[in-house]
């Protein structure tokens, strides 16, 4: 071998791993943030429900607050909403 790799300093950017491009509530792209926030990323994260739909965390919380406490459903499929824990 004439040339071998000693070291590699990689740079990567991360994106949300989502099926849909836009948040079903605010219609903003997941790559961007919810309308309340200025910057996408850690401060405006995305959450998944057990029904596998995902939303901006701020959007879904707002939705859930507007709903009856006993009857919290996913705005997309009307199944009862449970946060998906990994």
């Amino acid at each position: 071998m004439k040339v071998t790799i000693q070291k590699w300093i990689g740079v990567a950017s991360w994106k949300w791993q989502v099926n849909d491009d836009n948040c079903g509530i605010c219609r903003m792209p997941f790559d961007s943030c919810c309308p309340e926030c200025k910057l996408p990323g850690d401060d405006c994260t995305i959450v998944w429900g057990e029904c596998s739909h995902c939303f901006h965390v701020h959007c879904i919380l707002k939705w859930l607050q507007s709903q009856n406490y006993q009857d919290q459903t996913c705005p997309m499929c009307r199944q009862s909403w449970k946060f998906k824990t990994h």
Partner: protein
Amino acid sequence: MRKSIDYDATWASLRKVIFDVLTLKPVDRIIWSDSISDIYSICISSSEYIERIYNDCKEFLISHITHIKKELTGVYSQALLKKYYEYWIKFSSGASYLNSMFTYLNRSRNYMHGSDSSYEQMPYSSQENEELPAEIGQIAMQQWQEIIIEEYQVELVNVLLAAIENDRKEENIPVADLVQGVIHSFGKFFYQSVFEARLLEETKNFYARELARLRESYDFSGFIKAVKNRIDAEQHRCQKFFHVSSHSKVLKACISRLTAEQIDYLNCECARLVKNELIDDLNCLYKLLRLVDNGLKVMLQEIESHIKRIGKLLVINLFRKTCEDYVNAMLKVSDRFSTLIQQAFEEDPEFKTIFGKAIRAVINHSNSSSTPIRAAEILARYADILLKKGSKNWSDAELDDKQSHVINLFKYVDDKDLFQKFYSKFLAKRLIMNGSISLDAEEEMIKKLKIICGYEYTSRLHQMFTDIRLNEGVNSEFSSYLNKKNIKLTVNFSASVLQSGAWPLNQTSSPYSIPPDLERSLTTFEEYYCTSLHRGRKLVWLPYLSTAELRMTYLKKGYYVTTTTYQMAVLLLYNNALSYTGRDIATWTQLTEKELIRTLSSLEAAKILIKENSREGNSYKLNLEFGNKRTKFKIASSSIRESPQEITKVHSRIEEERKLFLQATIVRIMKSRKVLNHNSLLEEVIKMSVNRFSPSIVLIKKCIELLIEKDYMKRNEGRQDEYNYIA
């Protein structure tokens, strides 16, 4: 029980005491007390006696004053002034003693004439005027003015004015007490109705003569200094001689003659002083013009255009110089004129505003309308030089100073959004390439920017820092993850993971043939990051920002070389052969054509590869004779150098962003106001965008048109200059 009293006998003895008091002869304490009790007895015996003693006393004062008047006859000019003053001082203090001796009488008469109901039966009450009757002391003053001033007023006023003129000429300077005392003796009525008018007239006349003399005997610089001294002296003189009610009038007469009426002459010379930056003269002239209403207008204009002229000249000369030269020259201009403002204009806020306005115009000046204003870019580049590792060895204090310099100029930059673009681009490069002198220095700079432009402006920059800080943890956790899972990577691997929104990552990556060793590392890291660290994220590798360290063992000496990912991909090919055609390299490495050309030329320039031209096309041979003094070195990547196209790309991107920003701002304003006229809308938009850039009216209008087309708002049908928001 009222004691009967022999009025005539009592008055006779009182009369003698009154004379002694008035002429300031020594009066025995017992006699003084007796007189007071005599006056008391008279006052309580009957109201008739009260009037009688009052009138007798008045008679006595009149005859006393008439006597003094006779004493003064035949005395003129200075001598009269002096003698009058002596009599006056004696009389006025005597009269004030007398007034206190008659305190009880004064008080009784006040009661009698007062509207107090217990004295309603008194014959005088409510028929006489309601004013309190004159006290003995006041009677004395009144009589003095009626008898003596009436007689000598012409002569007295003339002598006084002559004395004041002497004081102004500084010849035979009169005694201040004397002049002030005599003026005081005039009393309010005479002072206001006769003396003050004469005084003002004389003042005007004197300064008209004085002005002619000063103009003749001095050059401009001497003239303004003399005028300044004149005005200062007159101010002092007012305090010394005149009643406080006249101070501003006298001063105004003096100032209007010496400066306000000369404003054209002064303004005309002002241009010359400004041009030559004669600080002392400017200061003097400033102090004069400050006294005139609206007097500083021309001076402000001159200063503004002077700063602009000098500054723009400098900018034009600096057009092709380095950014350090530019910043230093700008600082010099700003220092030079801020010193001028400080020394000549005593930090006058109006001048400071003008200074800011002019410096702003200079910094945002462009040589022609087609060339973009470069200040934002240059400042960002300068900041990059400051914060880049290894450019200069500055001490912390020096660095802090230089950062403040950038901020001082940055304040005046209109295109703050453009600065942000360049700054974040350079910052990203420094952070990714590990090229910052220190993270503390970087944060200090960002803090300073935040003070000027607010949180939002720097939030992206902050986010970049947070990412870099987080990455340290990510890498150390990754290596413990490897240990735990017992995975051994052949490549020493570390990674920076960036949040895509915060970083200026807009270059597209080219694919490349990932060597198997590296690929294993990449997938291991991805697995770790996306499953055990964060869920719901996917990683996109950015090879154009990644770097590799290669060990080259085919030469006489072993080398460690830092390369870009693309250079690495090419060099790894040569493990299998010594020469490749360009086409083969393209096929094997899968690089895009643009990236391939760039990479090959950089390797050729570094003399690692040798280019050979042949009929079938170019081929590249490994240079086996390669040598370098150092065992560790870096191959420069040609992509680091920016082409001018890239800069214009930044400009056009900024233009787009501005349009979006303006539209959003207009919608926000219209949404809250519902109806707004054109001018107020423009005003609000400009106010809200000044921290990012200063929008041109044309651009705002264009955005309004766009919004009308998109049905966000419409023109009011009745009034064409009003807009309605459409919900």
